[in-house]
C-alpha cells in the first residue's frame, strides 16, 4: 500500500481524525483486463507520464492506495481484471465504498465489458445502495469525435436494458458516464467529478466560491488539490474544458518554476502554503493562484480590468479562507463531538 499526500496530520491546518480514517470512503476501480485501470491510477495519483504506462505490467494484486489531503480523503482499490471483486470476502469493502468505477476500453469490443459491468453494478447495489456508479469510457483519444458520443449513447442504453431486465432501473439514476483519456485532461476532470461526489461539504464550498466570484468580479474559480490536479469544487457556472486545462497548466508552471528557481539549500521545495502566482494572458485575462493550505489552491481566472483592485481580491480571499476554515472546524467538532478552542489551528494562520 502506498500513500499519496502527507501522513503527518500535524502538518495540516485543519487535520484529519483517527475516526475519519475508518470512515474514509473507498473508490473501487474495476474493469476488464487491459482497460487501463492501473494507467489511470498512476497518471492521476502518481504523476506517471502517459507514455510510460505502455510499460506497465499487468496488475496481479488487489492494489490499495490512500489519497489524502485537506478535503480529499479516500482509498482507491484496484482489482485485477481477471478477478471478480465479489469472489473474495469483500463485503465490508463495498459497504465502505463511495464510488465504483468501471473502466471500459473504447478501442476494443465492449460487449463483454458492458455485460460484466451490469453484473458488478447489480451486485454492488445489493450490498450498498449508496454507491455512486461511474463508467469511464476510456482510451477515447483513438476514436473520431462523432463515434465518442455514439459509444456513450450505446452503452447507456444497453446498460439501461440490462438493468431493467433485472428490475434495477433505479441504479441508472446513480450511473454517470465519462469519456476519458490519459493523454489529455479529461481523466483529471472525470476523476474530479467522482471525487466531488464524495465530499460532503461540496454545496457549501460551491456557495463560498460563488460569493467570492461575485464580490471580486472573477469569471471562474476552482479549488484544486495541487498534487493530483483534481478540482474538488468550483463555482456554479458551467465548466469549460479549455478553462480547466488552462488552470491545470498554471499549477504545473507554478510548481515547476518554484522547483527550478525557488528551491532552498536544504532541498525543501519553495512551493508551500504561502505560494501565490499570477499570469497575464494575451486574451486580456489574468490567472491567479493562491495556496490555501499545503494541498489546496484556489485558482481563478478574471478579466484584466477587474484585476486592478488587488487589495479587494486579497481581502476577499482572506475572508474566503476563513470561511473554508470554519467549514473544517464544524466538521472536526462533529467528528470529535467535543467543542474545543481552536487557538492552535487559527494560530498557524497568523
Amino acid at each position: 500500500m502506498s500513500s499519496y499526500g502527507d501522513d503527518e496530520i500535524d502538518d495540516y491546518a485543519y487535520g484529519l481524525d483517527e475516526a475519519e480514517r475508518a470512515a474514509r470512503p473507498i473508490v473501487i476501480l474495476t474493469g476488464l483486463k487491459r482497460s487501463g485501470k492501473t494507467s489511470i491510477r498512476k497518471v492521476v495519483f502518481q504523476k506517471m507520464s502517459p507514455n510510460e504506462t505502455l510499460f506497465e505490467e499487468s496488475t496481479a494484486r488487489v492494489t490499495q492506495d490512500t489519497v489524502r489531503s485537506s478535503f480529499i480523503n479516500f482509498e482507491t482499490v484496484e482489482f485485477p481484471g481477471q478477478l471478480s471483486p465479489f469472489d473474495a470476502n469483500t463485503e465490508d469493502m463495498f459497504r465502505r465504498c463511495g464510488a465504483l468505477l468501471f473502466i471500459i476500453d473504447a478501442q476494443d469490443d465492449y460487449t463483454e465489458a458492458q455485460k460484466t459491468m451490469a453484473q458488478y453494478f447489480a451486485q454492488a447495489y445489493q450490498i450498498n445502495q449508496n454507491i455512486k456508479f461511474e463508467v469511464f469510457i476510456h482510451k477515447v483519444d483513438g476514436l473520431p469525435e462523432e463515434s465518442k458520443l455514439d459509444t456513450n449513447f450505446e452503452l447507456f442504453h444497453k446498460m439501461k436494458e440490462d438493468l431493467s431486465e433485472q428490475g434495477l432501473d433505479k441504479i441508472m439514476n446513480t450511473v454517470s458516464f465519462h469519456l476519458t483519456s490519459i493523454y489529455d485532461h479529461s481523466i483529471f476532470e472525470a476523476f474530479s467529478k467522482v471525487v466531488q461526489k464524495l465530499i460532503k461539504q461540496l454545496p457549501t464550498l460551491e456557495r463560498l466560491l460563488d460569493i467570492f466570484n461575485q464580490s471580486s468580479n472573477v469569471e471562474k474559480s476552482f479549488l484544486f488539490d495541487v498534487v493530483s490536479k483534481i478540482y474538488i469544487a468550483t463555482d456554479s457556472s458551467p465548466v469549460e474544458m479549455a478553462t480547466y486545462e488552462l488552470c491545470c497548466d498554471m499549477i504545473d508552471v507554478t510548481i515547476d518554476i518554484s522547483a527550478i528557481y525557488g528551491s532552498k539549500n536544504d532541498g525543501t521545495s519553495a512551493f508551500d502554503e504561502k505560494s501565490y502566482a499570477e499570469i497575464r494572458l494575451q486574451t486580456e485575462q489574468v490567472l491567479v493562484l493562491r495556496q490555501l493550505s499545503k494541498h489546496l489552491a484556489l485558482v481563478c481566472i478574471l478579466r484584466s480590468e477587474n484585476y486592478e483592485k488587488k487589495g479587494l481580491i486579497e481581502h476577499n480571499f482572506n475572508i474566503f479562507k476563513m470561511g473554508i476554515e470554519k467549514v473544517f472546524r464544524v466538521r472536526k467538532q462533529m467528528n470529535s463531538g467535543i467543542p474545543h478552542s481552536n487557538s492552535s489551528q487559527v494560530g498557524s494562520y497568523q
Partner: protein
Amino acid sequence: MQAAIALCHFCETHGPRVVITCQPIRDASNSQIFPENSDRGLHSPCEPSTSGATSPTEPPKYYGDNLTVVEDPDARCDACTSLGTTSYLLSNDHLTRTSYISSQVAFSEIVLDRIRTSCLRSLSYEISIPQLSLTQKGPLKDVNASSSKTSNDQNEDGKDDGNIFYGDSEHGYTFALTFRIPDTKARGLQRLYSLLVVSNDPTFLLNSHDFFLQALRSIKDKLRSLAMETFRRENQQMREAEEPLRPENASRISRLPPNLISRRISLDTKRTLQTITGDEEIWIRLHRHMMWTLRAQTMRIGDVILEGVPTQDMLVMMEMDETEIEELDLDSPNSHNLTLLQLHNLKTIATTLLVDGCGDDLEMLLKHIVTGGQVVIESDSQPLCRQFLLSLTNLLPLGCAKMCGWSDVYQHRFMVNLLGCPLNTDIPLDAEECLVIRLLSNGCDGLLLDGTNMEIRRRPQFAALMPKIVPRFKQLLLDPEIVDTILETTLRSTREKWLAKAKQFYQLQRQSTKIGFDKATQLVRATPHDKMVLIFWQAGLSRAFKEHVHEIIREQDLLNQKTPQNGQSTAC
C-alpha cells in the same frame, strides 16, 4: 500429505492459475505394491519417469492407494498449462515408501482446493515486505549477511514480491515465494509467478523456513536465469530488426510520440514456460527440484521411538549407514531369533576350539577379538563363513564390529576386523596380528556350524596376560547350564559393563587437566591388561556421545577462563 509444492502463474487471460503441483503420496499400509525382486534402490536417486508417454499399456507403479483423478476446474491457455490433464511425472522413493507425483491438477480434491486458494492469495492478495527492514538505515543494516542478496532480489522483483508465510487451520498454511521472470512478449516485459509450499502443519513450515526459502529461491534463480537468456536472445533478434526495447529505456521512450511505440510492442501472452525459458525439459527439471525439496525434508525429519534411555549400541545403529546395517544383519524383523542362532553357533565355535585346538586357542581367539585384532575366515562356503563372523560380532559392541562377510581379496585390519574370504586367499605375510581360521563345511549347509571343521592357520603373537573380560566370556560360553536366552542377556550385560568403562575412560582421557593413563585405568576399575580393550572399545561409542563430551569440556573450559577474571574484579 505433509506438504505439497506448486508453481503458480498469474495468467494474463485467466488470472491466477496453478501450473504444476508436486505432491507426495505415502503408503500407509504394509501392502507391497512393488514385487520383492524389484530394485529397492536405497541409495539410488529417484529418477522421474513420464507416465503415459513411456508405457501406455502398463500402468506405472506407485505407493499409496488408488489415485482419484480430479477434473480440472479451470479454463486454461498455453501460458497456464504444464503437462496437460493426461500425463504426469512420477518418482518413487522406496526407502520411505513414497511416490512423488507432479501433475497439472493435484490428485486430491482437498489438496487441489487448498493450492488454488493459496495460489490466489499468493499472487493477488499477499504482499511481502522483507525489503523494508533491510533498506532501513541503521545499526541493524549489516547484521544480516544475506542483505546483499536480498537487495539484489529487490531490484529484479516488484516491490511487493518475495517470501511470505500465511494461512489458517481451515485452508492450510502456505510458505510462498513470489517472483517475476522476464519475457519479451509480456505486458511490462515480465510475468508473475509464485512457488508455494502448502501444508496443514504450520510448525513444519516455520521450522524449515530457511530451508524452503533457500530451495525455492534456487528454483526461482534457475527459472530466471534460463528466461533471462531467452530474453537476451529475443532482444538481440529484435535489435537486429529494429531498435531494442528495454525496461530501463522506458523513461526515455516517454518522450517519443505514443503511436511510434505501441506499434513496436507485439504482445503474446499465451507463451508457455517452455518458450520463455527456452528449455523443453523445464517441467522435468521443476519436478526434480520440487521432489527433492520435499524429499530432503522427509529425510531430515524422521522419528525414532525409543524404549528408555538409548544404549550406545542403539545410538551407533542410528548413526550407521544402510550398508553396514545390512552387513551385520540388523535390519531383520526377527532379530531375536537370529541372535539366538548366532549364540548357538558361538557356543559351537567355543566348544570345537576347546576340544580340537591346542590348549588356549579359545582364549586366544577371544582375546584377539576383544582387543581389536583381525580375524580372517577362509572357507569354502560363503553362508557358513558369514554365520561364523556374525556370531563373533556378539562379543563386540556394535561400533567395533567392522565386518566384511565375503571378499575375494584381503582387506586391511584398519578397514575390517572380521573378514570372510574364499579358501587359499592370498593373505600378506606382513599383515600383523592376523588370526586366520580355515572353516570347512564338510557337506554341511544351512546356517548352523555344527559338524564343520575349524582349523587355526595362523596365530598372532600371544601373551599369557588376559584382559578380565576374556575369562568371563570363556566361562559364559562353556557353561552348559546357561541356556541361549540367558547367554544373550549375560553377554549383553558384560558388553555393556565394559562399554561403560570405555565410556568413562574416554571421558577421563579428554579432560583438559591431563590424567595419567594408569590413573585413568585405575579409576574405571580396570587392570593394565584391560588397556587394549578399553582403547579399542572406544570405537563402539556413538558420535553423539563423543560430541556431547567435547561440548561439555569446552563449556567448562570457558567457564574456568571467566571465573578467575571475575574473581579479580571483585577483589579490586
